[in-house]
């Protein structure tokens, strides 16, 4: 299990990646993250919803109400153009980060 400290900077990126594919909602996103990482990263609920709040405040995503299961409204999210730009930035940031950190990683250990 990856520690949340390490992955902290990329929670937003993960969510945006999934929203790039199609709009989605809380549980579905959390499930996809788990499946995509093959159980290596399971995002906590509080982390997930903190991210939603942050992303929405920065207008990288917007929320809308979807179908009503049992009369309860489900909050869906979709990515915005601003969000797409931010996603690209984060991807580039990761490439640079990866290059930098790799220089300090012993491959032969």
């Amino acid at each position, binding site marked *: 299990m990856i520690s949340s400290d390490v992955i902290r900077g990329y929670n937003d990126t993960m969510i945006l990646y999934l929203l790039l594919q199609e709009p989605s909602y*809380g549980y579905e996103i959390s499930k996809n993250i788990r499946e995509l990482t093959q159980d290596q990263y399971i995002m906590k609920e509080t982390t997930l919803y903190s991210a939603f709040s942050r992303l929405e405040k920065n207008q990288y995503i917007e929320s809308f109400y979807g179908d009503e299961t049992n009369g309860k409204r489900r909050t869906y999210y979709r990515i915005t153009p601003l969000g797409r730009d931010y996603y690209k930035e984060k991807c580039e940031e990761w490439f640079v980060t990866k290059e930098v950190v790799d220089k300090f990683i012993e491959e032969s250990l």
Partner: protein
Amino acid sequence: MDTIKNYLENLFCTVGVNEEVLRLKQDLYNNMEEKYMELKREGHSENEAIGMVISNFGNIDELLKELGIEKPEPKTGRFLSQTEVEDLVYNQKRWSKFIGLGVFLILAAVSTLVICGAALEGIDFANMKSITENMVELSSALPLIPFFILLAAGVGTLIISGLMLEKYEFIEKEEVDISTSTRNWVEKRKESYQLSYVVSIVSGVVLCLLAPMILIVVATFSGSDLGGAIGVATMLTMIAVAVYLFITSGMEMETYKRLLKVGEYSPERKAENKLVSIVASIVWPVTVVIFLAWSFIGNDWHISWILFPIVGILFGAFAGVADIVQKK
């Protein structure tokens, strides 16, 4: 699933209620419910599923901070058990009826005085001055007997009710905490009471509006002073019933709201209400003094009463302004 709902409620119990918080709670609940269902489908037992859902929840403080929601000190107040809350609710309800009764008796006392006075002496009921003049005459001492009896009964009832309710006064001054299940119980009661509450208040208002009209109608058509006095008595009775309704329904709803700390009794509103209360405790006694002085000196009882509605409206305006300013 109740376990999960209670878990969420407990986490959020010290957080203020607003649209954002409600949406978040709903989203979190939906999320946890779906996860629970899926775990059950995968073959986990109910307890396992609940345990897994809760343990994967995470740290609520982080979430609240992100949302900018202030999490106030939990449980600083006095904790009330279910029994204590039930005791509080039932007694407030019971004794508020007695208070209403007390007021009714006092107004009935005044009515008796007016009727007996008019019946015995044939005085002009609209001119209070002659009542006080006539009071020195022996024959008009008679109406004083039922008046004093009813007055004493009314005051006595008020005193007893006040004493019985004294031990519950803490709810007005202290912070109070209740458990989630108690909270649910109170919420259910409040919801089921809502309809009666509205009916009571509306009836009371209608009575208050009709009361002076009845007086005018009766006084105009009766011609005699006795008729006029009966008009006054009817008006006072209607007002007494209205006051009874206001007091009983008002107190009951207020108790529920205080316990749930919603609306007027949320921590934010309490601070604001302090200012308004302080001003009120100055303005109203001053108004009464001015009213009495004006009436006795100028003998203008039939005009001076207008002071109260005027001050009432001005004060209402002040409270409204205070509310707006505070919100900024």
